């Protein structure tokens, strides 16, 4: 499909450009698609390009040596991924996988260099976008390094756990648990997985079943 100026305009990297400037970018942007589960970028491989999501959703993540996954960003339409290697010439810092059918716009690193030199507004936009990404990652580092998210989650689970008797306790979404624990939703998913791996809870469709209440209390720091 032909590259559409209206879609380029919706990308924050290119906001503030005139219609003529946007039109001039068309020759340097290529459309590509991916199906659900397809890897678009692989961690530690040489970078080929910078990508913008036009439709669909892409997951950007790191994988540990033992196969655990840490999601860094859920990329929605208009947003970019694999930005850093295009600007610093390094390898891909993380992998990117399509979460469903996706349409992407792709710009090669050499073309991005030309765009930056010929359109200073784009350079300012890039600084703005990268600053926002830096803030998000710094916040994630804080959560991963200093906050005992699993302990807070354990407290929340104990507080909201029903025992079958008495009034029903409110159900909680992962977003609500994140807000209560003062963390990001991604961290709640990670902590739930940790508790499940330790056989303290079991995830059953829409239920979180606490299978080892004493171990959960230990996590929560509850002393009796």
């Amino acid at each position, binding site marked *: 499909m032909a590259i559409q100026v209206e879609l380029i305009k919706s990308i924050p990297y290119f906001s503030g450009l005139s219609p003529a400037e946007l039109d001039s970018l068309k020759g340097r942007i290529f459309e590509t698609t991916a199906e*659900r589960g397809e890897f678009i970028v692989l961690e530690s491989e040489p970078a080929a390009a910078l990508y913008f999501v036009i*439709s*669909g*959703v892409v997951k950007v993540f790191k994988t540990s040596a033992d196969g655990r996954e840490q999601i860094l960003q*859920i990329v*929605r*339409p208009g947003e970019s991924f694999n930005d850093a290697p295009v600007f610093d010439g390094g390898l891909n810092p993380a992998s990117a996988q399509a*979460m*469903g*059918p*996706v349409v992407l716009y792709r710009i090669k690193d050499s073309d991005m260099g030309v765009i930056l030199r010929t359109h200073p507004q784009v350079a300012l936009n890039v600084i703005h976008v990268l600053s926002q990404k830096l803030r998000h990652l710094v916040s994630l580092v804080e959560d991963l390094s200093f906050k005992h998210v699993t302990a807070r989650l354990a407290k929340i*689970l104990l507080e*909201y*756990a*029903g*025992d*079958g008797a008495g009034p*029903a*306790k409110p*159900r*909680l*979404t*992962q*977003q*609500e648990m994140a807000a209560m624990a003062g963390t990001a*939703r991604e961290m709640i998913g990670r902590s739930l997985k940790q508790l499940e791996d330790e056989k303290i809870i*079991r995830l059953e*469709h*829409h*239920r*979180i*079943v*606490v*299978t080892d*209440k004493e171990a959960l209390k230990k996590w929560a720091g509850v002393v009796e």
Partner: protein
Amino acid sequence: MSEIPVIDQERCNGCGLCITVCSCKSLVLVGNGIAFIETGNCGWCTWCEAVCPTGAINCPFEIIIEER
């Protein structure tokens, strides 16, 4: 109590991102909003909730303690 994701139609902007990530095909666009179908297929992966840009989808968990 309901065992399907809860969709707030007032918040839903009909962008359809949830449909693209739903591996069990339980979501469809009806008019300007998202509707949930074929409830038996939903695996409660909660990705629809995670990607929704307006927070219109909720996948709440009931938390229960298993007696030993």
